[in-house]
């Protein structure tokens, strides 16, 4: 039974939520500016509840089970996060209220900045970016402006390893800069030799993901940073994979100059079916003046004088700011969740999270490595990449394996990324999965590998047990049915 669309449940004249009667006199309406028709659904409250409840049940989610989507860090989202973000004194504050009336919010933002500084080693943080890619754009614009500010207007070249997330080159070209792709070497590290040709006065810097998207710690990271710095460039760190390094190493100490965090990945605020994220950017001291405006600062004087009128925490505009990157102050309710999480973990907890994320990944790898081809055979970090193909089952592809996983009631890994691995399956179990859940996943992967040889059609035709069977993406792209149309139904 297919769930109808909300529009198909609509009955002319039916009403949903009621509003109070108007308690003021009516004014004249501007007749020529009014719309003729408002084509919205006409449904009751119970229609709405049941429809969206039924839709929710068509989804897979972390709350149902393991969700080992590589590069996405689908860890468990503690329920206290949601309670905290819904406290009335947080939900109910307007961003333009007098700073004196929002000191609780500013305290939280300031201390989240401090927490992120402690974890990363950076000197300053902006919480404004709305998501990882938004943080990248912010970071790249900061790098660009830093060079311009020094009068080095000729710098226009950003190096990006071929294993990078697609957002890296996209953020760079949006900033008006030139992208140069750098290949990976045989061990999955950035190819140092290939970098050398670009160590000149045109270099903006490099965008590096570490651990990279193969799940490997770049063994040359320190050398890369030195090389880029010597050429006058800056090093951008893509913080998407920070879950492997919290409490293990501080990116700023090894030579990263600017990095975004993904609060919705590393710090357990949920992904929300695609957002909202939050992508704070951390920078070393020499870049602090370029951060997007504003950031939250603590007024030391105010504390000393203990004067009631002066706010202790205030907004501050960095003097050479690239400008604001979104309206108001960032995704505040996401910040609350990240703050709550870090506050509950402390030093020991964040390190444990990273250690067990890496333990789970290596353990899962150890269970399947003899069956799934492993292009780069090293101790991995929080994730690893295998090939979804078998010599003795030539017709089977990574996509078939992914779809067959659905039949077993678990979520597939990221597939066909990174692009440098054929038929890539990128697997990130995260630390919140138990050994039993990881074992269950390994067992399923092994069973599917067996099925690939004995009954490949089972894979080609998968999923068999899902709300819908395999969907036709080509048909969707060709038909371009991108909205409901009353007249066509």
């Amino acid at each position: 039974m297919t769930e109808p669309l909300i529009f198909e449940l609509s009955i002319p004249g039916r009403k949903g939520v009621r509003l109070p009667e108007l308690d003021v006199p009516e004014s004249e309406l501007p007749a020529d500016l009014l719309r003729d028709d408002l084509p919205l659904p006409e449904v009751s409250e119970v229609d709405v509840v049941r429809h969206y409840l039924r839709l929710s049940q068509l989804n897979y989610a972390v709350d149902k089970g393991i969700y080992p989507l590589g590069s996405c860090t689908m860890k468990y989202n503690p329920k206290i996060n949601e309670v905290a973000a819904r406290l009335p004194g947080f939900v109910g504050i307007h961003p333009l209220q007098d700073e004196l009336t929002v000191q609780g919010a500013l305290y939280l933002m300031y201390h989240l900045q401090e927490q992120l500084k402690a974890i990363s080693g950076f000197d300053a943080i902006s919480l404004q970016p709305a998501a990882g890619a938004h943080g990248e754009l912010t970071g790249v614009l900061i790098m660009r402006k830093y060079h311009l500010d020094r009068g080095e207007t000729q710098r226009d070249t950003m190096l990006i390893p071929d294993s990078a997330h697609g957002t890296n080159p996209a953020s760079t070209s949006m900033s008006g800069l030139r992208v140069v792709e750098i290949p990976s070497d045989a061990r999955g590290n950035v190819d140092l030799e290939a970098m050398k040709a670009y160590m000149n006065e045109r270099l903006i810097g490099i965008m590096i993901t570490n651990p990279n998207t193969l799940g490997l710690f770049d063994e040359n990271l320190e050398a890369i940073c030195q090389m880029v710095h010597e050429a006058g460039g800056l090093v951008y760190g893509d913080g998407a994979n920070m879950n492997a390094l919290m409490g293990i190493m501080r990116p700023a100490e090894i030579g990263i100059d600017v990095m975004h965090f993904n609060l919705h990945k590393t710090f357990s605020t949920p992904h929300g079916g695609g957002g909202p994220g939050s992508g704070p950017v951390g920078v070393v001291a020499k870049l602090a003046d370029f951060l997007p405006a504003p950031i939250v600062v603590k007024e030391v004087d105010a504390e000393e004088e203990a004067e009631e009128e002066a706010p202790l925490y205030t907004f501050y505009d960095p003097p050479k700011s690239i400008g604001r990157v979104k309206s108001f102050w960032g995704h505040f309710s996401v910040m609350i969740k990240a703050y709550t999480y870090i506050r509950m973990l402390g030093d020991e907890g964040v390190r444990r999270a990273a250690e067990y994320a890496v333990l789970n990944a290596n353990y899962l790898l150890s269970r399947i490595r003899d069956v799934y081809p492993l292009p780069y055979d090293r101790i991995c970090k929080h994730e690893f990449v295998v090939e979804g193909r078998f010599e003795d089952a030539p017709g089977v592809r990574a996509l078939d394996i992914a779809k067959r996983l659905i039949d077993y009631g678990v979520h597939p890994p990221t597939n066909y990324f990174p692009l440098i691995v054929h038929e890539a399956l990128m697997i990130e179990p995260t630390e919140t999965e138990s050994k039993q859940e990881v074992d269950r996943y390994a067992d399923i992967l092994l069973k599917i590998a067996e099925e690939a040889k004995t009954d490949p059609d089972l894979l080609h035709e998968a999923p068999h047990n899902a709300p819908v069977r395999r969907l036709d993406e080509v048909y969707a792209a060709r038909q371009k049915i991108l909205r409901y149309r009353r007249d066509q139904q």
Partner: protein
Amino acid sequence: MVFVPHTEEERQAMLKAIGVEKMDDLFYDVPARYRYPTLGLEAPLTEMEVLEELRELSEANLNAYRTPTFLGAGIYRHWVPAVVDYVLSRGEFYTAYTPYQAEISQGTLTAIFEYQSLICDLTGMEVANASHYDGATAAAEAVIQAYNVFRGKRKKVVLAPTLHPHYREVIRTYTQGMGLEIVGDEALEKPLEEVVEMVDEQTFAFIVQTPNFFGEIEPLEGLADEVHTRGKKALLAVAVNPISLGLLKPPGEYGADIVFGDGQPLGLGLNFGGPTLGFYATKMRYVHQMAGRIVGETKDVEGKRGFVLTLTSREQHIRRHRATSNICSNQGIMTLAATVYLSALGKDGLRKVALANYHKAHYAAERIAALPGYTVVADKPFFNEFVVECPAPVAEINDFLLNEWDYEIIGGYDLSRDYPHLARHMLVAVTEMNGRDEIDDFVEALRAFADYHQVEVEA
């Protein structure tokens, strides 16, 4: 071990299976001198303790839902029906990722398809994407889309000075490396009809907002034609308050090429200004230059209807540095809120909300206009926000309203913060949440301030 379920025995067994002795061996590749830094985070708290701390912090803020509030300027206090948060609290929705695996993400995908449809219906446009971060970043993406429609051959974009100041700023931030000529808002007091005259054949887009930052409904009639003619097919992009569309003719009907805005009024709380969502719609012929995710209808191998992410060749994970935008995560769960909100209110409810906003704002304006010392500045019709010229600096009045007056009122926005020529001008927002008694108290407080100020001045 917070949120890590392993026992010590399991840990040992797993290390053994991997073939290493201890946890540290898994980090052999991290240079030793950087390994295991002391972070210096505060000592960890239990759930019980952390909630106590957060409750205290939250209570240190003044809650605008419990305080008479006339502050808007882009974020509005509206009624959020209980069903919205009920749906948002479903773990199946909020703990899912972006719906890459369509077969087990039909809940999210169907809801996004409904959202796109609702945004099209509301704005009068042909196609909508699955959201941007907020209205300001949607504005920047509108500029970039229009720039790409002309393949970067035109460099000039004209912004109405009455476009939200944050939108104008974010447009500049986003495009600082693109070498654009951004004009129109150099003289902030310039009337719209003169700004439109700046559109020429080098212009790729004109960006305007209605109701504008001052709450006024801009005359869109004929504007699209004028922009298309002067700018030889330059695009008209219109920012709009979605609640106003419960009442007002949508920009699509006036020929707008792009319609966008901030979706916060559609069932989202104040949340100190974020997260909200940026809704975004355009004409079908521009769909390939539009950024962001799009959900399309399709069928499965048995012919059953289903939904998938589609037209992905525009996006960063496929096209990398040639993508239309770098956007990846968007405002997933917030679009669900807007979808549930628009469904729950429906045809009748949204119109009633819009009417309540309109009538209450006009009631407030009429009463304030009658006060000595205050002038309502409204050359054009307005929706739920209007400008008042006050007898003293707005900061002074707001301080009085909040601290000196018995009722503790959050006053309107001080326009001089963004528009220096508007000293003593307050932007007052009124929504369905402001009861008549609240409005009357506000008016009385303004009168009391004027009296008190008069005494001060005379003294």
